[in-house]
């Protein structure tokens, strides 16, 4: 399934729609290279889930946690991780017991130490100003979370 975004606002709105409809426990992987819009999409999802105020980049702190009316939200950015085992040093096990929204950027760097995803979102740049989102459903329950119907193939790429 694919969506295409003509501007950052559309990307944020899609993420917000997802954040509003998903139910925890939810594990979402957010993939794509630097500058493709992961920050914008993540901010949308967290805003939709009810995170108030600023959503700062977790690149430096690796994990930011938020308490919302819908439950806890964990925003991870594994960009600086060199080995998944480092997640043990960060105490990732302490978070695994509780139902939460897990939003994980650069999940490929934490392979083997992360919960299984429900959804994989992969962003890329089709052309300047025009970004593409590919969505892979890893669990059936995640199908009902997606906002707006997918864009037709004629809009893709």
């Amino acid at each position, binding site marked *: 399934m694919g969506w295409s975004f003509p501007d950052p606002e559309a990307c944020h709105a899609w993420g917000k729609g997802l954040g509003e409809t998903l139910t925890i426990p939810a594990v979402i992987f957010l993939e794509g290279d*630097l*500058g493709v819009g992961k*920050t914008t999409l993540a901010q949308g999802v967290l805003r939709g889930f009810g995170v108030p105020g600023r959503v700062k*980049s977790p*690149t*430096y*702190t690796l994990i930011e946690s938020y308490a919302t009316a819908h439950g806890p939200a964990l925003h991870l950015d594994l960009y600086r991780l060199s080995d998944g085992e480092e997640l043990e040093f960060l105490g990732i096990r302490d978070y695994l017991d509780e139902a939460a929204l897990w939003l994980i950027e650069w999940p490929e760097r934490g392979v083997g130490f992360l919960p299984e995803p429900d959804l994989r979102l992969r962003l890329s740049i089709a052309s300047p100003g025009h970004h593409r989102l590919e969505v892979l459903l890893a669990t059936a329950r995640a199908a009902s979370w997606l906002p707006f119907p997918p864009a037709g193939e004629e809009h893709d790429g």
Partner: protein
Amino acid sequence: MRVLGIESSCDETGLALYDTQGGLLGEVLFSQIDIHAPYGGVVPELASRDHVRRLPLLLRELQQQTGVERPDAIAVTAGPGLMGALLVGVSFARALGFAWGVPVLPVHHLEGHLLAPLLEGEAPFPAVALLVSGGHTLLMEVRGLGDYTLLGETLDDAAGEAFDKAAKMMGLAYPGGPILAQWAERGDPTAFALPRPLLDRPGLDFSFSGLKTAFRYALDKVRPASDQQLADLAASFQAAVVETLAEKCRRALGQTGHRRLIVAGGVGANKALRSRLADLASGARNREPIALHYPRLSHCTDNGAMIALVGGLRLAGGLVPAPDFPVRARWPMESLETR
């Protein structure tokens, strides 16, 4: 009074001994790039945030360096930062406090950064402080010890993080911010038109995430880029960040009326930023000159000295340490208690 300072909120592990009469007596630091003999050569990157193994060794080293076995008090970073990393430092501090029978007091990591220029012997308050690093980008009004107001901060990425990520896109190693700055010296800062995020809006907040995407577009357009194009890209990127930071500093000084600017954090070492701020400080539009205050370079990044300093200042100011205190991953600076 001699205060042991302990910092372990993120990657660096730092210890220092500060004397409220005699100043800084000694300090030791372990960072990812600082491979030290006692650790037996190369430390695996895997353990880059493994403070547990480093703290006892660093304490021994500091005790040998200063000749002081037991301080009169312990100050430890209790937040904000990475919860696991903070807990290691605080547990270490509490154990030492119990064993030595000395008080332990919590220190706010960012207050350490803001007050670090005091380690040079000056008390530059009231002032506006720009804290700009890989993890933070914020403007704070500092009226005095414990008296702070947040003026603005980043809505997404920190400036240092933006530098590192742009460097990565160029194919430079992480953290590549300082390397990007070297490339920028040979480039034309006007070669590429990159956005100045939030400059067109009032307020003192920052946003650097959109700049990543703009940088990516510019880079993709010239791929495969020549060395001169890469240098021009680096210079244009640096100019966008520096101009944004400097302009917000100018607004913050105007808004508060203060004539002193403290610049702390790793990006504070950036030459282009220092040059731009020097222009700002001596600008013809100023009624009176603006004084710039930088900590020494080794105190721009995380260190134990700034934590020991804040602990010492608090105790000298009459703070009575509570027997227990929370460790906080997030901790608004305006809620600090001074007594």
